[in-house]
């Protein structure tokens, strides 16, 4: 283990970690500070506590609707992406067919595309199909952009699984599909779960496509709804920050419960020998 000098390490660590966490703390603190006090001298512990911003957020701004929209889109996308990515990843990891490497490289390349470069034709196409400002209209680009990462992740995952199990099943007479269904998929649960989590996170956080392909509060996702809060002369910071807290809660919950998985997924996808 690399040792840097225990004390400097601890101090540096605390400083760095505090810097990472502080903005989020500040966000929460400000969201429970009354509007009038928001821009007075900043204090670390807001007193008095006020939940007015949250009340206004849900009662006056109907913030539950963007939350619902984000949940629906993220769920729909995950339900589509994870299965097709799993199938694809299994094929790449286990089966020999021509173009395997090209496919993987293609997936990698696609994940590097700038999102803006597919907006124009997608917008025109969705408009023709009357899919602008709809859930399916968002799911299409979301699946496209989350599939590559899921494929990479699951490929690495499947590669880690010993092929002995399936081969044994197949030597016993099972077909490859049968082996896949009975043997591999149950074992794939952890990888699939990780892929699902990362896909969900991607959809929840995505901004550009949501901004381009939705038109009104009925279908805005959370990031778009929060951004469009601007008032005439001033930004209602109290409500904006309350909204950001709401936007962060699902993410924080996922990270809290699945941090090990998430890190494993990210590093598996990233380590390339």
């Amino acid at each position, binding site marked *: 283990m690399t040792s840097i000098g225990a004390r400097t390490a601890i101090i540096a660590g605390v400083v760095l970690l505090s810097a990472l966490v502080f903005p989020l703390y500040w966000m929460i603190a400000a969201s429970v500070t009354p509007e009038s006090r928001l821009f007075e001298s900043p204090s670390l512990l807001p007193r008095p506590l006020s939940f007015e911003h949250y009340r206004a957020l849900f009662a006056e701004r109907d913030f539950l609707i963007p939350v619902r929209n984000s949940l629906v889109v993220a769920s729909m996308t995950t339900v589509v992406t994870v299965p097709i990515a799993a199938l694809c990843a299994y094929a790449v990891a286990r089966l020999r067919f021509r173009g395997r490497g090209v496919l993987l490289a293609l997936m990698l390349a*696609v994940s590097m595309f700038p999102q803006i*470069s597919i907006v124009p034709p997608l917008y025109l196409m969705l408009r023709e199909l009357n899919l602008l400002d709809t859930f399916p209209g968002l799911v299409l680009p979301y699946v496209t952009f989350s599939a590559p990462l899921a494929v990479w992740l699951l490929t690495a995952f499947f590669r880690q699984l010993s092929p002995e199990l399936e081969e044994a099943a197949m030597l016993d007479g099972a077909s490859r599909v049968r082996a896949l269904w009975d043997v591999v998929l149950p074992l794939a649960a952890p990888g699939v779960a990780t892929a699902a989590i990362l896909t969900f996170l991607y959809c929840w956080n995505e901004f550009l496509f949501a901004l381009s392909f939705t038109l009104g509060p009925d279908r805005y996702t959370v990031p778009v709804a929060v951004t469009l809060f601007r008032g005439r002369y001033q930004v209602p910071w109290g409500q904006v920050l309350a909204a950001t807290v709401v936007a962060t809660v699902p993410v924080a919950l996922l990270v809290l419960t699945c941090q090990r998985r998430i890190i494993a997924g990210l590093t598996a996808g990233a380590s390339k020998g």
Partner: protein
Amino acid sequence: MSRLPVTVAIADARLGRWLVAPALVFVLLGSLVPVAATAWEALHGHDLRLPWLGRPFVGLGNFVEAAQDARFTSALVHTITFAVVTVPVELALGLALALIMHAAVRGRALVRLAALLPWAVPTVVAALVWRFMFEAQAGVITAPLRALGVVGESFDWFVRPLAAWVPIGIADIWKTTPFVAILLLAGLQGIDPTLHEAARMDGARTWRRFTTITLPLLRPAIVVAAAFRMLDALRLFDLAYVMTGGGPGTATESLSLYAFIALMQRLRFGYGSALSVTVFLLTFAFALIWVRALGRSLIGERT
């Protein structure tokens, strides 16, 4: 080495194509075909507000216009400068964070959590929170700076063309350092500790061990992290749009943001497509240079 008979291999190949098909279809239809369509659109004049002009083929006309467009050139410069400045900072801080996470024995879960949250949070949230902290009157960052006399009384980050980049840069660094740290952490964990033991017994000091053992072995991970970060930085959109809207004026416009404005606000789909293609070419050129310069460490496992 597979013990399965050849007939299975043939069936496998066929099955493989079927299993791969759905994902491939989505990727082709959702990414490749649209990019090609954008490139084709970039060769036309297509202003959705001026339907009487039709959609004439203009060849490279849009690109020529872009080359002469001062707003395009500055967006290009902004984007590249942003990437070149923030990525090394993120690498350095990420490395520091990774070393700390690696060294942490107690409170490992807490450290991981603290590191993951900024990465997981929506970029929009990061933009708004940091904007709030940099806000003029009593933003938690501006106030102490003013008290210390570093900045003037009515200093507003967001009305100054250069200063407005600072909050954007810091928000980006804050958000992506954990991602870099995680990538590097994986690399750190792959380093054989006996190497360090041997070196320590030979009397090598910490820094020397760091530079001669850790860094070289970490090189692949650093290269990968740098590549990912660079590509993301060149695609900058969310932070610029939400924090400043490209302002003051067009001082914080990234290339993607300018393309978006041309497309969705000005409805100049031909010109906006050309700008989008430029962003694409920029990232493509970078990826190409990277791969060329560093060989195979980027494109992954062989089949």
